[in-house]
C-alpha cells in the first residue's frame, strides 16, 4: 500500500504538510509530494480539502521464499516455564485450529523442554501433532537453543504459519528465528484470519502507541510468523479423549552463549495472577499516593480479583511493574475491569479494552477512559471505592 498525492487535484494549499507526523510531505513544483519517509499512518488522508490524497495498491513486493506454495500447516510454539506450558499456548491452539481448518491443513505444537505429560496436554487442547524436544538446556530460557532448534524444524517441515505468545520469551527469540529464516514477523496481533481470496494470513495489530490498527500481510515469504499477547485469543475445547502424534526431537548439539544464573520471582501481595483474574481493580495517577493501592487491594480481595496499574502509577513506584496493564505492560481480558483514577491514555486502553465490562471511576468527567467504560462514575476515588467496599461487605455479610 502507498499513499500518493493526485497532482491533478492538488492546489498547493500546503494543508497536508503539517499533518504528517514524519514530515514526509514536501512541496515540489508547488504540488504536495509524499516522500519515502511515509510510514502509512494515514494522518494526511482526510486533511486535503480537494481529496487529492489517496491510498493505492503497490505492485512491488519482496522476492519471497522459493516454493512458497509447498509450505503447509499451522504451528504453535508452546512456551514453557518451569516445566509448565504457558496458558497463551493453549489460547493460540484455539486460534490455530481455526486457521488450520480454514487452510485445510493440520495444527502442530512445538514444545522445547517440559515432559511428556505436557506434550500430551497440548494434544488434548487441540494439536494434531507435537514436536517435543526434551533436553536440560531448555530448563532455563536462553534465546539461542530455541532459535536454533525451531529454525531447523521450520526448514525441515516447512509450516505455512508459526505463532507464539507475545511474552518476554516470545518477543525475544521469535525475531531471531524470523531473521534466520528470512521471513516476516508481526508482533502483538489482536486478530488473525485467513484471507479467503489469497489464503494469506491477515494479521491485525495496534501501532503508534495504540492510536491506530494496521492489517499486515506477509504475502511472498514463508512461514508467516506472528506473536499474540496472552488473553487476546480464546482457548479451544479441551478434549481428554483426543489423540495425536508426539514426535521426539533430538536437541542435537544446540548451545547457548548466554546463561541464566538465577531466577527471581517478584512476590506480590495479591494471590490471584493478573492475567487469569476474572476481576481486576486497577489504579492510576489519580490515586495520588501509594496508599491508594491498599484500598484497591481490599476491594480486589472482596471481589476475588487482582490489582492492576497504569504506567503512571508504576512510574511513580507505587506498585511493581508486574502489575502494569497496557501497551508496555500486560494485556488483560477479565470479566470486570474497574479503573480507578486512570485517565485512559490510549497506551493503557490497548491493554484492557477487550474486558467484558469496564467500570471507570475518575474525578474528571472528560477523562478518555469514559469513552470505553460501560459504567461511568464521576467522583473521588477515595469516596467511591470505600463506599463500594462498605456496601460489598454488607451484601456479603462480612
Amino acid at each position, binding site marked *: *500500500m502507498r499513499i500518493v498525492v493526485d497532482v491533478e487535484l492538488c492546489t498547493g494549499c500546503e494543508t497536508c504538510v*503539517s499533518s504528517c507526523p514524519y*514530515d*514526509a510531505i514536501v512541496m515540489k513544483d508547488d504540488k504536495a509530494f509524499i*516522500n*519515502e519517509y511515509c510510514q*502509512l*499512518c*494515514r494522518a494526511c488522508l*482526510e486533511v486535503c480539502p480537494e481529496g487529492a490524497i489517496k491510498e493505492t495498491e503497490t505492485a*512491488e*513486493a519482496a*522476492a*519471497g521464499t522459493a516454493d512458497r506454495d509447498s509450505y503447509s500447516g499451522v504451528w504453535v510454539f508452546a512456551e514453557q516455564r518451569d516445566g509448565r506450558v504457558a496458558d497463551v499456548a493453549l489460547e493460540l491452539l484455539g486460534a490455530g485450529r481455526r486457521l488450520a481448518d480454514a487452510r485445510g491443513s493440520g495444527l502442530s505444537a512445538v514444545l522445547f523442554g517440559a515432559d511428556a505429560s505436557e506434550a500430551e496436554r497440548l494434544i488434548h487442547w487441540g494439536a494434531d501433532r507435537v514436536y517435543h524436544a526434551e533436553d536440560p538446556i531448555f530448563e532455563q*530460557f*536462553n*534465546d*539461542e537453543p530455541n*532459535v536454533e532448534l525451531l529454525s531447523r524444524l521450520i526448514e525441515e517441515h516447512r509450516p505455512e504459519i508459526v505463532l507464539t505468545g507475545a511474552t518476554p*520469551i516470545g*518477543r*525475544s527469540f521469535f*525475531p*531471531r528465528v524470523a*531473521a534466520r529464516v*528470512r521471513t*516476516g514477523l508481526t508482533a502483538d496481533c489482536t486478530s488473525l484470519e485467513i484471507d479467503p481470496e489469497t489464503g494469506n494470513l491477515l494479521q491485525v495489530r495496534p*501501532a*503508534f*502507541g495504540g*492510536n*491506530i490498527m*494496521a*492489517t*499486515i*500481510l*506477509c504475502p511472498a*515469504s514463508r512461514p508467516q510468523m506472528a506473536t499474540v499477547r496472552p488473553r487476546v485469543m480464546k482457548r479451544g475445547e479441551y478434549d481428554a479423549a483426543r489423540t495425536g502424534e508426539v514426535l521426539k526431537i533430538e536437541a542435537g548439539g544446540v548451545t547457548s*552463549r548466554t*546463561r*541464566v544464573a538465577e*531466577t527471581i*520471582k*517478584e512476590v506480590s501481595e495479591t494471590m490471584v495472577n493478573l492475567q487469569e483474574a476474572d476481576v481486576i481493580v486497577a489504579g492510576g495517577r489519580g490515586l495520588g499516593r501509594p496508599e491508594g493501592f491498599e484500598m484497591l487491594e481490599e476491594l480486589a480481595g472482596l471481589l476475588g480479583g487482582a490489582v492492576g496499574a497504569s504506567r503512571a502509577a508504576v512510574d511513580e513506584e507505587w506498585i511493581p511493574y508486574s502489575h502494569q496493564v497496557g501497551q*508496555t505492560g500486560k494485556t488483560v481480558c477479565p470479566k470486570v475491569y474497574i479503573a480507578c483514577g486512570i485517565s485512559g491514555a490510549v*497506551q493503557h486502553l490497548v491493554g484492557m*479494552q477487550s474486558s467484558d465490562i469496564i467500570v471507570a471511576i475518575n474525578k474528571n468527567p472528560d477523562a478518555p477512559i*469514559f*469513552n*470505553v467504560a*460501560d*459504567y*461511568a*462514575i*464521576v467522583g473521588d476515588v477515595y469516596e*467511591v471505592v470505600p*463506599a463500594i467496599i*462498605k456496601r*460489598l461487605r454488607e*451484601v456479603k455479610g462480612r
Partner: protein
Amino acid sequence: MKIVVCIKQVPDTAEVKINPETNTLVRDGVPSIINPYDLHAVEAGLQLKESLGGSVTVLTMGPPQAEAALREAVSIGADDAVLLTDRAFAGSDTLATAYTLSCAVRTMGFDMILCGKQAIDGDTAQVGPEMAEFLGIPHVAYVGGFEEIAPDGLRVRRQMEDGYDIVETPLPVLLTVVRELNQPRLPSLKGKMKAKKAEIKRLSHADIGADVERLGLAGSPTQVKRIFAPEAKKERKALTGTPEEQADRLIEELRGLKCL
C-alpha cells in the same frame, strides 16, 4: 570498548490524538523526539563507558531530520553520531531495517550494541534481536539492571512477566533496555554546544556493503495492507448521585450481570 547505540526519531505517540470525525491521526503540535527507550540505551552506554572506558557512537536510520535526534544524544554525552540515510531504505519493515543497521554496525566495528526495547511508533521490539541474529552475536532483551560489568562479559537483569532472570553473557552482545534500567541524564550547556557543532557522519547503502535486494521495500517480507482507527465503544451508563448511591447502583448492575 566500542559501544554503538541504535536510536530512532519518532513522533511523540503519547501526544498524538485521533480526530474523532475523520478517524485519522492529528500531527499538529506533536514534536519529534528520541524514542524514549533509546534515551535509556544512550544513558546505559554512557554509564558503561564511564566504567570500562571506550566510546559511545549513536546510529540512526532515517530521514535527514533524524539528525536532531543524533545531536540530542551527543548533547548528553555521545562521542560520535552516524546517520544512515538513503532512498534505497524506503519502505523497510523490521527485517530490512535490522539488516541495514547490522551492515552499518559491522562496517563501524563494535564491542556492544544497545537498543531501546521498542520504538513507540512501530511497537514491535523486533529490530534489536533481529540485528543480533544477522551479526551472529548473542542478545539479552528487556535489560532492567546491571549486576556486574567486566571487559569480557556482563551479568544483567532480564525482566520477565513475574520478576526477572539474572543472565550472564559474553561480549560482543546486543542488549535491549527497559526504562527501569536508569534515569537518562540531562544535557549540560557544554553538551548542547558540542551537539550544535558535532559532525554527523552520513552513510548511504553503498557505504555499508549491503545487498540491495535486502533493502527497503524489496527486502521487506511484511507489508501494510490497511490502516484503520480502533473501534469506539458502545453504550455507556453514567452512575450518578452520592458515592454511596453510585456504589449501590454499581453493585446492583454487576450482580444483575452475574459478575459478583
